[in-house]
């Protein structure tokens, strides 16, 4: 019976969208955009000073979306840490009961670790020049740390430190945004820092700093998420007092 409802629902959904296909989704003509993207591209250099227009949009034009996105990650990290804190089965202890991933895996991981972190930091720092930015860079740094976790070299993460990094980075993001209130027309997230020379590393005002905050936050949050899912007992909550 459920399969029937599923089919029925999706049939209607598909019929409607297919009937819209020709009129709505005709390919845009080649050389000009009618959307809001066109004025943004033209004003990107002057308003944000960032060569990567997508980064300019993510951090400045639609900065509130990114604030919301960082909050989404923050909430789901809190939720996962909370729910995972009572998963008592010693997952990783049993996984590595007899062998801890072997010598090759461990040394290979240790060699790879600095390079991946380097790439991650590079992507975060060059968010306003080349593709990538706080989110993929942060994820890369977190993946580098997972190598230690997944090869069993580290069993528990320093949750106090991760917790500190995560919240300080969040407060840093809000602080940088609040700088905007100091500018001539005060509003949140205005890019008041000097925009520097276009297309060079030290350009685009506060965008690199905000992306650095986002990178730190994403890296520490994802490490908390994965480590609270792999460590045993109430790993998600620092011991000294109740989270």
């Amino acid at each position, binding site marked *: 019976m459920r399969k029937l409802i599923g089919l029925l629902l999706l049939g209607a959904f598909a019929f409607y969208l297919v009937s819209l296909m020709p009129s709505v989704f005709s390919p845009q003509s080649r050389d000009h955009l009618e959307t809001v993207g066109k004025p943004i591209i033209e004003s990107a250099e002057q308003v944000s000073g960032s060569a990567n227009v997508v980064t300019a949009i993510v951090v400045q034009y639609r900065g509130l979306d990114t604030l919301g996105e960082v909050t989404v990650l923050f909430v789901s990290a809190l939720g996962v840490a909370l729910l995972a804190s009572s998963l008592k089965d010693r*997952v990783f202890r049993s996984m590595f009961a007899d062998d801890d991933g072997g010598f090759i895996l461990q040394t290979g991981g240790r060699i790879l670790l600095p390079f991946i972190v380097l790439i991650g930091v590079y992507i975060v720092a060059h968010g306003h020049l080349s593709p990538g930015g706080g989110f993929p860079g942060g994820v890369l740094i977190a993946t580098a740390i997972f190598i230690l976790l997944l090869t069993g070299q580290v069993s528990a993460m320093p949750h106090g430190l991760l917790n500190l990094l995560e919240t300080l980075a969040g407060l840093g993001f809000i602080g940088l945004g609040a700088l905007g209130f100091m500018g001539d027309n005060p509003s949140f997230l205005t890019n008041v820092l000097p925009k520097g020379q276009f297309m060079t590393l030290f350009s685009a005002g506060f965008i690199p700093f905000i992306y650095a905050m986002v990178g730190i936050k994403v890296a520490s949050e994802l490490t908390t998420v994965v480590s609270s899912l792999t460590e045993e007992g109430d790993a998600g909550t620092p011991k000294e007092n109740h989270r």
Partner: protein
Amino acid sequence: MTLWIVLFLSILLILMALAAVFARSLASAVIILSALSLFTSLLFIMVAAPDVAITEAAIGSALTTVIFVLALYRTRTADRADSGSPKNSADEGALALRSTSEADHA
């Protein structure tokens, strides 16, 4: 030229989506899902969206797969713990596979 690449990738994507949702074993479904997200980021490159491609590759295929594997491992090991009988690692794999397939048909 790009049309042919996009056409090929799209057909591949749809087949993978079908495979991911209707795969026989759960483990292969998760692997196909991470491959699907990798090919989606390839498609993003073809559509001149490198930012999105990096993020999709980093979050979609690398990170989501880690969490899926953890979920798979936990639901499988807990299954064995319920059965309560101590197993040495030799036939652990066999039982694990069987219990996964059981979980599908139940």
